[in-house]
């Protein structure tokens, strides 16, 4: 795959690389223990010892943000993985075979995508309860239709191309053609949507955790931190600002990457 080297892609790659590096380092080492409280260092403004200050329990905000960004990243990645895997199978099969099953799946798709995803996620949480793993499953299921739709359209287009006919002449079976021959060819179309899906997952998770129906304590998440930070806006504005900036950087990085790869932002 030839990447178009443009400004969007370069900036997106740079921001994402820095964020990933920070998150990876944060998984093994943070400046302080993110949950360690220090009664003598409550509500410190940013200083040398605590670059982003401390919160109301004297916990180091930088460490907490690194941990929270990691958690948000893992949740979003897992969500996209579920949506993508199921979307590949469903979209691949319906696009390849067509027929009545295809019709039914597409109508169902239309009905599901008619809902704003955060609303559906809230309903699922209302039905089955919150928590980290339920959020991943709920959001993952909701992301299946949009991936299935893209995969289906692309598979349906590719299956009438010459290389598929020649693979069939050489005796390849349907599954081999679908997943061995067609799949690699739809990756370039799929990658931007994966980046957009990742962003939607980050935003959905952050919103739900902010609302208190997502990740539950003691699990960290950037959304939950914003919820806590809002209570201390007056005394510690840097808390909310740095947590929000972390979300923006995550989303911005992947958004620019997606755009650099030729995707249309906001149209998943």
């Amino acid at each position, binding site marked *: 795959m030839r990447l178009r080297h443009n400004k*969007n892609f370069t900036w997106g790659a740079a921001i994402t690389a820095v964020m990933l590096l920070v998150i990876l380092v944060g998984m093994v080492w943070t400046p302080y223990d993110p949950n360690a409280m220090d009664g003598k260092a409550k509500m410190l403004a940013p200083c040398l010892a605590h670059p982003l200050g401390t919160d109301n329990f004297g916990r180091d905000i930088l460490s907490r943000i690194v941990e929270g960004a990691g958690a948000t990243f893992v949740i979003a990645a897992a969500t996209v993985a579920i949506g993508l895997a199921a979307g590949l199978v469903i979209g691949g099969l319906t696009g390849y075979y067509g027929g009545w099953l295809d019709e039914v799946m597409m*109508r169902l798709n*239309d*009905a599901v995508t*008619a*809902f*704003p*995803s*955060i*609303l559906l996620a*809230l*309903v699922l*949480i*209302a*039905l*089955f309860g919150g928590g980290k793993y339920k959020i991943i499953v709920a959001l993952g299921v909701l992301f299946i239709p949009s991936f299935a739709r893209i995969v289906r359209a692309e598979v349906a287009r590719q299956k009438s191309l010459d290389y598929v006919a020649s693979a069939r002449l050489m005796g390849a079976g349907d599954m081999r053609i679908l997943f061995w021959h067609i799949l690699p060819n739809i990756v370039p179309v799929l990658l931007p949507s994966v980046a957009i899906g990742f*962003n939607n997952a980050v*935003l959905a998770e*952050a*919103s739900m955790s*902010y*609302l*208190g*129906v997502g990740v539950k304590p003691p699990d960290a998440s950037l959304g939950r931190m*914003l919820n806590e*930070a*809002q209570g201390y*806006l*007056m005394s510690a*504005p840097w808390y*909310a*600002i740095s947590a*929000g900036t972390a*979300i*923006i*950087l995550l*989303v*911005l990085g992947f*958004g*620019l990457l997606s*755009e650099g790869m030729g995707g*249309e*932002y*906001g*149209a998943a």
Partner: protein
Amino acid sequence: MLVTLLLISLLAFLAFQLIPGDPVTKLLGSDYTPERAAALRHEMGLDRNVLVRYWEWLTGFVTGDMGVSYNYGMTVRQVMEGKGAVTAALSVMAWLLVIAISIPLGIALARWQGRRLDRVFVAMNQVFMAIPPFFLGILFTYVFGLVLKLFVPGGFVGPDKSFWGFLGYLIFPALAIAIPKAAMVTKLLRSSILNQMNEDYVRTAYSRGNSRWSVLKDHVLRNALLPVITFVAMTLADIVAGSIVVEQVFALPGLGRLLLASIGNRDYPVVQCIVVIIAFIVVFMNYLADIVTQTIDPRIRLG
């Protein structure tokens, strides 16, 4: 459209029949005995066929009888009274702001493409698209509420007390919802116009001596707006969903807060009702977008 609406309402209804946990148990609490539970179940009609209950619920919903809230001991309609107006006003305001910001800005950026203004805004657009509305809301609370004291964070004036005060309290939440969306629409409109600028009819229009501005205004805009209109109509759904979160940031007493409280209380008739109403709005907006694009572009009607 009717089929979709029926399908959505049926799905929403069935989903809430699958919930683990029995509302009867919750209602009776410590008074629970099997006999009382059976009696209450019969009284609430929970012991009858699911499809029969769906039909009753649907006919009730259409005629404005939306059932009784488990939690407040009032009808769902009473619980929602006044809350719907807040969410509706907030969403419409945000939506109008999206249009008011993005259409002129998108045209201006395309008109002066490549100039400094264009380059600055295109870069800023990327950042604005990445801001979650609720974080923007928190920033507004801090900057305009706590530092500049333009409004009281957490305060609210009902439309019955002071209409302008009511709208005033909605301005900042509406902006928080609108700005990220407006950034997307601006970008879409700008690139849509620039795409059209390469078409043959544009060259023809130029060759007849039209200025760039008049080509844009009289020829390009009509074509460039088509995909934008569809997108703008669909953003209303996102805006309604976004208002659920942003109402929480500004402590506005709208449907979103009611929805969250009802989810917390497991007050399913209310949750169900709000979900179906929002879904109906979404489907209706998509339908409206279809009609509008058909009116502007008669070619679509044939297809």
